[in-house]
């Protein structure tokens, strides 16, 4: 019996059994990530956007970050402790970034 046929999921739905997305979902997420990247580059070349490009790019990047973290890294489906550990590091990192920028007068220049 081949190795592939030896292991059979108990439930008909892979998602229901493991609580994790199906390959089709992963593919859809990849398409969304590609579209967001294309939008980022497209918006970048629109001159009329001006300084509004900064919040737009920040939001688009945050969306990509969340999609990868929640679906590919399975944070959405795993125990909350993992999310807490990751977000804690993120919060500290963001704080360090903002603090250093303020310390060196980035916002005043």
């Amino acid at each position: 019996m081949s190795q592939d046929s030896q292991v059979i999921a108990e439930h008909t739905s892979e998602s229901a059994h493991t609580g994790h997305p199906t390959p089709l979902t992963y593919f859809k997420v990849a398409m969304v990530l590609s579209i967001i990247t294309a939008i980022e580059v497209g918006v970048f070349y629109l001159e009329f956007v001006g300084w509004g490009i900064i919040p737009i790019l920040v939001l688009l990047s945050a969306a990509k970050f969340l999609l990868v973290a929640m679906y590919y890294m399975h944070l959405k489906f795993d125990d909350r402790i993992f999310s807490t550990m990751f977000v804690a590091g993120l919060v500290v990192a963001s704080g360090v970034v903002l603090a250093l920028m303020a310390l060196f007068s980035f916002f005043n220049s």
Partner: protein
Amino acid sequence: MAQATITEHGEHEPTTTGLNHRKMLMWAFLGSDCMFFGSLIATYLVYKNKSLAGPIPEDVFSILLTSVSTFVLLMSSMSMVLAYAALTRGRMKTFRIWLASTIIMGATFVGFQVFEFHAFVNHEVVVECDHINPADLTPVELEVSAGCVDGVHEVEKVVGLTPKTNLFGSTFFTLTGFHGAHVTLGLIWLTSLFLLSFKKGMVTPEKNLDVDLAALYWHFVDVVWIIIFTVVYLFGVFPGF
């Protein structure tokens, strides 16, 4: 016919949280790596526009090229998660195909980075002397344009960007260099998993945590690049930022 339940994370010894220690350790490491890259990104931002001489982002960055490499890395994340999904389903051949795809795309990304670094080090500034508008030139181009004397139509000069050139060079190469090192280590890890998968009993659906940990690391590397692409490249060439 034997039936086996595929546990998503495999069996592990009892723990106080009920969670696998190795997975907890990986997430703790990723949290700490966030802080590591956060400090490097902060340093880049703090020293931005403070270089006294030498190339600046507008001189060297190619957004088109970096967009392509970003897309490649994003797709490698997709192939990595599909490899893991195939492993949990017991589809070893599919697992190896997707893992090999991840390795190839990751290596392609590193190739893009090597090409980019090489281009930066050997960056050539070309100024066409006819109809020069100084307001449109970057400081480096202005400096090179000093060679536009009577009878000269075009001036070329190699003004490379290295970690020693200026603050932009130091912070850029440190940040992207460390990211590239992370990607390279990830490639070594994934390649070892790929090779081990051919040895009986080393990579199995029951031991899927080994691949899960590598996948988490790989996705983190991708996530960091998402931030670097926006903050360093896109914001980098945005006028006035």
